[in-house]
């Protein structure tokens, strides 16, 4: 599996998973493969559980203002009245989950939390994906020294543990904002996507339909954009699903380390768990339990679906 004369074996595990994914998705005749996979997915209870979790999560996130009883940043007199630093009011009329440490409606914050968490997760994944796809496509399309340079860079990045890389990036940023966190978590994923896309494109370069297109005199740009990219995207989408779970876990870890989003007005589960949940654990453990549970369930949902799609695409499972 390791390339002779290659720079690294440290990142082999990650690389191998990527290669497998490429192998499973890069075959020509993708349409029937995808239809096959889809059929298998619908018969797989794990995939359905994952999909249902994600769907619920999306619905709550999108319709948060309709679902939530209150504004998530408003401080309520009936909650602040009994609030002190060492006692946080529990459920009262109109506030089913009681107060957060600042007298805000905890239930509403949990619901809006879906939205913010989705925001962080999606953006981190998307930025990582776009940059990765850009680099990967460049490497895959041009080959030669561009390819060598991009691959060398991704090798280095893959060898560093993702959270460590994110921490370093936050430390090296001159200011801490929500964007610092999103970008730090995103950059970590760039090499994964880059390698994925490059591998997938290389595999296709020699495939029949691309060779045919080239023989017909189709321009290189058009081959890349019309033929190679779309085919590669299946693999990218699977990886994105899995990345999402890692992104929200990393964001929570950064908050716990005190390097996360500094704006505690923002209701984001990782932030709620990493800051308030830990600080007020003794006073009101629900402040930790609920966001933690939410993160676990959503991360689980994305992992289940991602793994199921990956499995469904596995040619071995085609009967």
């Amino acid at each position, binding site marked *: 599996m390791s390339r002779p004369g290659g720079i690294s074996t440290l990142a082999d595990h990650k690389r191998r998973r990527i290669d497998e994914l490429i192998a499973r998705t890069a075959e020509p005749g993708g349409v029937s493969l995808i239809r096959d996979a889809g059929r298998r997915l619908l018969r797989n209870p794990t995939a359905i559980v994952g999909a249902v979790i994600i769907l619920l999560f999306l619905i709550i996130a999108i319709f948060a203002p309709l679902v939530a009883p209150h504004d998530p940043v408003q401080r309520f007199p009936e909650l602040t009245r009994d609030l002190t630093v060492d006692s946080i009011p529990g459920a009262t009329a109109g506030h089913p989950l009681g107060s957060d440490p600042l007298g805000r409606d905890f239930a509403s914050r949990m619901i809006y939390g879906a939205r913010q968490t989705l925001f962080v997760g999606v953006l981190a994944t998307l930025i990582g994906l776009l940059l990765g796809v850009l680099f990967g496509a460049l490497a895959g399309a041009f080959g030669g020294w561009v390819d060598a340079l991009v691959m060398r860079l991704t090798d280095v990045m893959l060898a560093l543990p993702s959270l460590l890389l994110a921490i370093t990036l936050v430390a090296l940023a001159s200011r*801490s904002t929500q964007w610092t966190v999103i970008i730090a978590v995103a950059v970590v994923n760039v090499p994964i996507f880059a390698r994925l896309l490059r591998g997938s494109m290389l595999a296709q370069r020699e495939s029949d339909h691309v060779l045919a297109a080239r023989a017909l005199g189709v321009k290189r740009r058009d081959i890349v954009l019309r033929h190679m990219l779309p085919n590669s995207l299946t693999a990218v989408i699977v990886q994105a699903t899995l990345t999402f779970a890692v992104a929200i876990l990393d964001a929570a870890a950064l908050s716990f380390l005190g390097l996360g989003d500094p704006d505690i007005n923002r209701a984001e589960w990782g932030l709620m768990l990493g800051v308030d949940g830990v600080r007020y654990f003794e006073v009101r453990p629900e402040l930790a339990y609920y966001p933690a549970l939410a993160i676990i369930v959503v991360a689980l949902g994305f992992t289940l679906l991602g793994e199921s799609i990956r499995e469904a695409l596995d040619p071995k499972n085609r009967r």
Partner: protein
Amino acid sequence: MRASGRLRAVIAAGAIAALTIGAAGCAESDRDGGGDGGTSAAGGTFIFAGAGDPKNFDPIFNDDGESFRPIRQMYDTLITHKPGTAELVGGLAESWENDPTGKVWTFKLRQGVKFHDGTALDAAAVCANFDRWYNMKGEAAQSQMIYYTDIFGGFAGSPDALYDNCKAQDAGTAVVTMKRYKGAFPGAFTLTAFSIASPEAMKKHGSDTVTQNGDSFSYSAFANEHPTGTGAFTFGGWNKATGEITLNKNPDYWGDKAKVDKMIIKIIKDENTRKQELRAGTVQAIDFPAPADRKALAGEGYKVLDRPAFNILYLGINQKNPKLKDLRVRQAIAYALNRAQLVQTKGPGGSVVADEFLPSTVSGYAPDVQKYEYNVEKAKQLLSEAGATGLTLNFYYPTEVSRPYMPNPQEIFTVLANDLQAAGIKVNGVPRPWNGGFKDDVQQFGKQDLHILGWTGDYNDPGNFVGTFFGRAKAEFGDDAMTEMFDAIGKADATVDQAAKKTAFEQVNRDLAAKWLPAVPIWHAPPALVTTKNVEGLVPSPLTAEEFNTVSLTK
């Protein structure tokens, strides 16, 4: 793949084997006895959980509480505080006198006091310390004498230097002469940074060598391994791998001898972990419990010892912004803040709303300043009178930090910003890491419109609070903010007569509230200590300057 896996295993095994063999050669226990280091049952070992690493143990090169905690046990100052108060009493000096010009200080020293190295504390030793500070060479060393530069103005050759000379009138009398009067004295003589160290030991261990290396400094053997003072404990060692500082009872201490045989300061940075160690019974006292945990701990029978509040949190207003030059706008900000609610909901137990920038125990506190009770309508009205409706302000707040006066800056910011928004002031929150730009942006460059910051007092003097903040032009509040204010504070600080000084500062505090309002005082928040039930005799100090010789452990 197979081969490389095997190879890696071989390398790892080889490394471990080499390590083991190499280590076995010199592996010898260097314990002095049983598990507890051979302490007798009578006094026992007192384990105190501190919150951070000390820098070193040479008093003059330090300026933070975590370094001062062990230093205070090993050294004494000429004047000290009555336990549990900020009231001055004799330390190494039994008594002291100031001449009418306020420039000459005469100290009558305690007889028969010995440094840990056996040399005698006499007037010559005291003067050697004053001379050492004044004559310190090299920018590296000088730049680390933060308290000295602040109080004594500068070093030999500098026109700003306050110190003139120190004479040993006789073995028991030291006379320190300053070039000018300074209001900080005699309070400043109590500063732990100005502890008296053994001149012999300092010479022997090269105390003045501070070398710069890259972005930092390294200190002498005196500062790291051989701190030698007159205190109730002697230095036992600092084990950096386990984060333990060991102090041993000084059997020859001149004052009340320590009741425990040994004291260990265990460094635990996380407040939550400190509490858990206390519960597990592995430490007997912790500093700075999380405000949220106080009630639970008290309920479980732990002793929560509140220090009398000696700090201040304030909302700074930068008058570089022309809108904020208008007193009405600053008053509107003061009215807009619901400080009573902030204290109730977020204040550590025992905190109170602050109306002035100094605690009520400090002389110069005026009981009758203008108070700004929470009043949103009034705030809105003042804003519209000043033509400042729709105001947008940049509010800087620190992250990655917790201070006794500001246990949780993000929460405090969020609450204050919320209040300001309610009064129609748009707030643009700007978080900055404490050491990664906050202090720079706020105190050096004055980039902010509003910010939160605070202070813990060093000694009982109004100048140590009000003078520090508003005594001179600072970028923090807009450089040229108010010359009238600087003059008034300067004059009050230079008043030799104590009664007149008190009156002058009372007026300063009245004007600060009604006329100048360069900032809004928020709260005084007392930091606490928590001990197990069997710890007796620990007296909390408002200056967080506890001495542990009075501590004993009951069964």
